[in-house]
C-alpha cells in the first residue's frame, strides 16, 4: 500500500450545516473524476454525509480532506474534529446508539457502506475518521 499523498485533492471546512452539502459535492466530484460507478458513489457519499454531520454535531465542526490514492485506484477521506471525542467507540459504532439528530445508525452505517474504515478518538482529543472506497 502506498502512503497517502501529502496534499489532499480537496479540503472542506465543516463550520455550519451547509458545509455538509459542500463536503458531499466535493467527494462526489472527486469520485466522478475517477469514473466511479453510481452505486459506489452513492454509498460513499452517504457515508461521508454521516460522518460530516457527526463531526459538526458532536465535534463542534472540523475539516474533511479528500485524497486520491493509486494502485489500486481509490478515494480516501479524512475527517477530523477537535470535539470532546468518543469515550466508547465500540458503543458509538453500534446501531441504536442514538444521539440528538441521528437515528443511531450514523457511524455504524457509514462503516458498512465503505471498504475501509478507521476511527481514532479519545476523550478530550477529538475524533479522526478515515474511509476508503474503490471506484468500481
Amino acid at each position, binding site marked *: 500500500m*502506498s502512503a497517502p499523498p501529502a496534499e489532499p485533492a480537496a479540503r472542506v471546512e465543516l463550520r455550519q450545516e451547509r458545509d455538509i452539502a459542500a463536503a458531499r459535492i466535493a467527494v462526489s466530484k472527486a469520485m466522478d473524476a475517477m469514473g466511479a460507478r453510481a*452505486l459506489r458513489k452513492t454509498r460513499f457519499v452517504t457515508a461521508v454525509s454521516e460522518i460530516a454531520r457527526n463531526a459538526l454535531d458532536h465535534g463542534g465542526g472540523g475539516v474533511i480532506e479528500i485524497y486520491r490514492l*493509486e*494502485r*489500486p485506484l481509490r478515494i480516501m477521506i479524512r475527517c477530523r474534529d477537535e470535539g470532546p471525542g468518543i469515550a466508547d467507540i465500540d458503543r458509538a459504532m453500534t446501531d441504536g446508539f442514538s444521539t440528538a439528530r441521528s437515528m443511531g445508525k450514523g457511524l455504524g452505517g457509514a462503516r458498512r457502506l465503505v471498504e475501509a474504515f478507521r476511527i481514532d478518538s479519545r476523550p478530550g482529543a477529538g475524533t479522526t475518521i478515515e474511509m476508503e472506497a474503490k471506484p468500481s
Partner: protein
Amino acid sequence: MTVAPTTEVSRLLREDFDNVLDAWFATQKREGVRRPDLFSDRESRRQLADLLRAFSEALVQIDLDAPVDIEAEAWSELRLALSEITLVRTERGVAPWEMTAFVLALKQPVFEMLQERLIGTPDELLRDAANFGRIVDAFAMHINEYFIAERDEIIERQRAEMMELSTPVVQLWERVLTIPLIGTLDSMRAQEVMENLLNAIVEHSAEVVIVDITGVRVVDTQVAQHLLRTAAAVRLMGAEAIISGISPKIAQTMVELGVDVGEVTTRPTIRAALDEAFRRVGFRIGRVEDNRV
C-alpha cells in the same frame, strides 16, 4: 523539475552506458533469466537499453538521498518502459520471479563498477551503492505490484462476466419482471442481483418483481437476509417483490432459523407467484373456451 547534484551513479550511467548494459546483460545470462528461448539477444538488449536510458535520465532529476518515490514525475519514463517490457515478456511466458530477477540483475554490475570508480572515497561509495540499491529494489517491487494488479483485473473481469450471465432479469409481462436465482447467493452476488433488479425496475417501469429461488441450493440466515433486503429495496423503489420457489423444506428451515419475512409476499412456486403478480397489475389468465361461453 529539480536538478539534483551529480552523483557518481548518474555519471557512471552516462559515461559508461554501453559497459553497464553489457554487464547487466551478462549477469542476466549467468542467472538464467535472459530467456534466449523467448527473446533474441538483440531484442533483449534493446529492452535493457530502453530501461537503462530511462533510468539514467531520471537519475539526474532526483535527489538520491531522498526516499524513493517511484510515482514521482521523474520516474514516469522508466515506469512506462518497465510496464511495456513486462507486458511483452510475460505475454511470451516469462514468469513474475524471472521478471523481478531481470531487473535486480542490474545491481551487481553497477556495484562493482562504482567500487572501481570510488575506491578512494568509501563513504561516497557506500552511500551511492545503498541509494542505487534502494531504487532498483523499489522497481523490482513495482513489477510485483504490476503483476498483482494485472491478475486482480483478470479476476474482476471474469467475475463481472459470470455475474452478468448468472443474474438475468426477464420481463414476463407488462410491468412484471422476474429474476431466477441459481446456485449460491453470497454478499457480492446478492448486491449484484439487487442492482440489476432495481435498474430493470426503472427501465421497465415494473410494479411487481418475482424473485425466484427454486434454483438456490442453500437458504440459510444470510441468504434469507439478502432476499429480505432485496425485497425491502424493491419496495423503496415503489414496486413489490414476491419471493417464489420456497419449497416445503426451505419453509421449514426458515422457520427453524427464526427468519421473519414480515410483510414480504412469498409463494411456493413461480406459477403461484405469477398468478399473484397478474392479479396485482390487473390481468387474469383464463381459458379461451371460457371467454367464448
